[in-house]
């Protein structure tokens, strides 16, 4: 007997991993304005997962390969004259998801499978899933640490970065690939729709709390981990869907911080406006 034999314990460990990973990658998603792209990506990995399941191949591999294909498709579409990135992303989103739905609907047990894909099932995480998530988390964190300077300068000054001789297209691709593998690691736990919550929420909350870039990462990761653990705990106590509880908590924490910082800003403004 080890601690990981209980499904609740495995779910807690998974929540800690995806919470931290989502929090860290989320900072980049936020500053590079990629939330909608992430949304499209989560939907677009769906047919990859279904095809992999049909062929008996590895689910992570299927989702990852399809995610990269969609990334390429979006980049190509958005280069066509007259189309902007948003419309291309929307088409990739709708098309990818519909392909997954049609593939699943040809199988038996349609509704149940589909629910697991769309809202996830963190309590069904196996020891192997946990090991893969840990591996992905370590690799992505390493990648982001190694390229931290390049990522920072490309985010805030792409022209300057290119002038310095950085290959910005390569840096962009590294970042998008990091988002793809993060999505692939998180989808089994939270599902294709709610994964976006962990990839945007903690980072957006951290952004309200600090203006300092270096502080964003630890704060965001801490928020992600706490929401993940608390969400799993709430779902076991009240018997509600685990992935949804995590996403809901992320939203509630953001709402509270937003109200708090809004209030603080109002008070500051009043104080500043008062005559000396």
């Amino acid at each position, binding site marked *: 007997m080890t601690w990981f034999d209980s499904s609740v314990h495995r779910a807690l460990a998974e929540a800690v991993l995806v919470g931290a990973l989502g929090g860290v990658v989320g900072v980049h998603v936020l500053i590079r304005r990629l939330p909608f792209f992430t949304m499209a990506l989560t939907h677009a990995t769906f047919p990859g997962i279904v095809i992999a399941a049909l062929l008996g191949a590895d689910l992570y591999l299927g989702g990852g390969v399809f995610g990269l294909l969609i990334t390429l498709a979006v980049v190509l579409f958005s280069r066509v004259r007259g189309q902007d990135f948003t419309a291309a992303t929307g088409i990739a989103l709708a098309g990818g998801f519909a392909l997954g739905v*049609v593939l699943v609907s040809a199988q038996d047990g349609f509704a149940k499978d589909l629910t697991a894909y769309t809202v996830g099932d963190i309590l069904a995480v196996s020891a192997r899933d946990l090991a893969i998530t840990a591996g992905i988390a370590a690799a992505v964190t390493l990648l982001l640490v190694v390229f931290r300077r390049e990522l920072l300068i490309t985010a805030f000054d792409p022209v300057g970065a290119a002038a310095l001789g950085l290959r910005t297209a390569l840096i962009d691709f590294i970042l998008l690939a990091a988002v793809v593998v993060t999505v692939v690691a998180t989808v089994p736990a939270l599902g294709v729709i709610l994964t976006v919550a962990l990839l945007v*929420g903690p980072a957006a909350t951290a952004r309200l709390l600090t203006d300092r870039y270096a502080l964003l990462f630890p704060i965001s990761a801490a928020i992600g981990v706490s929401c993940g653990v608390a969400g799993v705990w709430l779902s076991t106590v009240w018997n509600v869907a685990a992935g*949804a509880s995590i996403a809901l908590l992320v939203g509630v924490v953001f709402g509270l911080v937003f109200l708090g910082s809004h209030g603080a800003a109002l008070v500051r403004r009043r104080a500043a406006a008062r005559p000396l």
Partner: protein
Amino acid sequence: MSLIEPFQTPFMARALAELIILGVLGGTVGVVVLLRRLAFLSDALSHTIFPGVVAGYLLAGEDGVFWGALAAGIATAALLTLLTRRVAQDAALALLLTTLFAAGVVLVSRRSGYASDLTAFLFGRVLTVTPEQLWQTAAVAAVVIALLAALRRPLLLRAFDPVGAEAAGVRVGLLDLVVNVAVALTVVAAVRAVGMVLVIALLIVPAAAARVLSDRLTVIVPLACLIGAAGGWLGLVVSWEASIGYGLRLASGGTVVLVLVAMYGLAQAAGLVRRRVRLGRARTGLEAVQ
């Protein structure tokens, strides 16, 4: 493969009528969505009305769904306006989307038969559309299209020159609210019949395809309506043929989306050819002058 034969059964005829109305509505509103780059807003709205749908159903049964969805759509628009004062719009949309959708999932996950409820919302049940729902959809479509047609001049000005619009005395805030409400109404009208996923496709794909084929707005709008309606028709035919002729069950909503995306691909190819031809013509014209 017959294009008409499947629609002799009443339920298929109703499904076709619903999809044609929604195709025309989605095509019209979709052009505004495309011009104003509101794709993410439409996506977010289609998810955030979910808790409204669930709450409406729990409180008042089938009749409550429409009003619950409408209330949630308006709440989304209001919350979005509040949040974007301090947060980037895309982050605010993503947060609203996941939080409200999660609230809906939590509500519905306490019920038995949870998986099938969720599936119905996500993918719709276009084959079980009732005559009453058909009338509701038609009424919403008429109101929204009339609204957009009446406001077409300020809408155009706002899309291409926001500063000029304000200078010309257009009340931009009010206009944006009208557009958001139009998108919300479209989503609400469509979601019960065709599900969340198809709503997004109807709002984005036909307009994007029409945009590739033409540069003139007076052509783009009817073309988008035509593509939307044709996609619905062909999608139903394909899904029917696959299940009757080949014993392959393809979800009708998903099939419609795939047909729409395929039409978009064709439009891209046609657009490429059109530009090549024009370029060639311009070159020969230039040589003739020289």
